[in-house]
């Protein structure tokens, strides 16, 4: 059976179609990969745009609030006097309302830089409305240094020991003289919910470990009743996650190496859900990459369709393979095997003495040409046998 041409042809057909099935499956997989990559990049782009938009509206809100506060005579008097109690009385109610309504987490007042100081590295605090017991300290921070240098509105992200804050600062003037600075701040963890509301999907906030304090982080997590996740990732910490599964937003790479437009991370399947994942960097006010936003996009439907398409394609090829193999074998049997077997039968009978048996060409094709040749050969053979019979006086004929 294994030596027959029929079997060899079957192997060839099955092999060819099998290769076709594998190629088709690979091709479909490639299309799926490309689609997933495109969807992930679009999700990253949408999330990045939403993040920028949430940041912009937050800055606008805080800037407008600073301008309004800066005109308040009570507040100006408190700032001139550098009196925390006066400032507290003038702004505590506002702070509480802003915190509740807009998620404002910081309202701070700062002394002006010392006269003649042209490049201050920071400013001295007059009052932190959120933590009034902490005041009078000198803080070095890029946003403070810039507002003291430039005397105009400064905004940007700032990574502290325990989190990232979007800060907006502006000078307060009296008679053309800077009498201090007002700062509003908003922890950006809340941004994720806003982005989720705009672009859908789930998001995780990753913060660079470089500027964070491990002990303070552990303490903050413990206070919030959360597991200390400091060791989960080598370069970053998961500060916020809108999804229920922290495992989905693990990033083992270095955020400093991320391209500006972000990059897709491999697709994961957890239970019944398949998620396309990507990450884009976020920069602080100095332009340094200090964090990243992890983007999750549910592609369960697409993934299911792709898998189902792959199975259908492979099954289709298998069915096609069966049909084609049956068709080829049937044609081969009829066009070649039967006719060769007929010639073998005739040749055997002729040799056995049935000299009158003829081979009639059954078609004008390659086997037909061979049948014609075989019949010519048979005639010559019978003629030769007749001559031998005449010479020897024996009969080579059989009994039918």
């Amino acid at each position: 059976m294994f030596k027959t041409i029929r079997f060899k042809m079957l192997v060839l057909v099955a092999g060819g179609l099998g290769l076709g099935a594998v190629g088709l499956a690979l091709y479909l997989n490639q299309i799926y990969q490309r689609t997933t990559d495109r969807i992930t990049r679009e999700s990253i782009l949408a999330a990045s745009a939403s993040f920028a938009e949430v940041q912009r509206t937050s800055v606008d809100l805080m800037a407008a609030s600073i301008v309004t506060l800066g005109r308040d005579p009570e507040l100006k008097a408190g700032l001139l006097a550098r009196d925390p109690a006066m400032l507290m009385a003038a702004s505590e109610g506002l702070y509480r309302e802003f915190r509740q309504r807009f998620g404002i987490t910081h309202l701070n007042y700062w002394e002006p830089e010392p006269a003649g100081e042209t490049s201050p590295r920071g400013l001295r605090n007059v009052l932190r409305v959120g933590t009034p017991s902490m005041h009078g300290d000198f803080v070095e921070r890029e946003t403070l240094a810039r507002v003291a240098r430039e005397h105009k509105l400064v905004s940007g992200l700032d990574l502290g020991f325990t989190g990232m804050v979007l800060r907006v600062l502006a000078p307060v003037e009296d008679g053309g003289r800077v009498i201090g600075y007002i700062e509003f701040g908003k922890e950006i963890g809340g941004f994720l919910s806003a982005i989720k509301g705009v672009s859908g999907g789930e998001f995780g906030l990753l913060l660079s470990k470089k500027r964070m304090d491990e002990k303070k982080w552990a303490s903050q997590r413990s206070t919030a009743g959360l597991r200390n996740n400091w060791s989960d990732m080598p370069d970053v910490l998961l500060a916020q996650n809108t999804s229920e599964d922290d495992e989905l937003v693990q990033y083992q790479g270095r955020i400093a190496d991320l391209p500006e437009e972000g990059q897709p991370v491999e697709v994961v399947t957890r239970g019944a859900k398949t998620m396309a994942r990507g990450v884009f960097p976020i920069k602080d006010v100095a332009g340094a990459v200090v964090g990243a936003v992890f983007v999750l996009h549910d592609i369960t439907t697409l993934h299911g369709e792709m898998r189902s398409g792959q199975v259908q394609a492979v099954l289709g090829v298998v069915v096609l393979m069966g049909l084609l193999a049956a068709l080829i074998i049937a044609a081969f049997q009829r066009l070649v095997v039967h006719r060769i077997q007929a010639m073998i039968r005739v040749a055997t009978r002729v040799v056995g003495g049935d000299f009158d048996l003829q081979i009639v060409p059954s078609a004008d094709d390659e086997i037909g040409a061979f049948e014609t040749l075989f019949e010519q050969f048979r005639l010559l053979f019978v003629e030769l046998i007749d001559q031998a019979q005449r010479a020897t006086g024996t009969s080579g004929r059989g009994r039918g």
Partner: protein
Amino acid sequence: MGRLYDARLLIERVIAERKLEDCEVKGRLSLKTGFFINFVSPDAADDPAKLERLRVAAREVLNIEL
């Protein structure tokens, strides 16, 4: 009569008893032995090589021992 011719007669008897196709069976035997069974005459020489080939062919085709 020689042994080769006796063998031919035995084969013809078996074919007749079993009601087989004479030309078909003899054709197969001839193709296997390399000589025409029908040309084996009573005075054919007992070529041992031919006899051995016929013995093997008869065993394969008819399952008989010559």
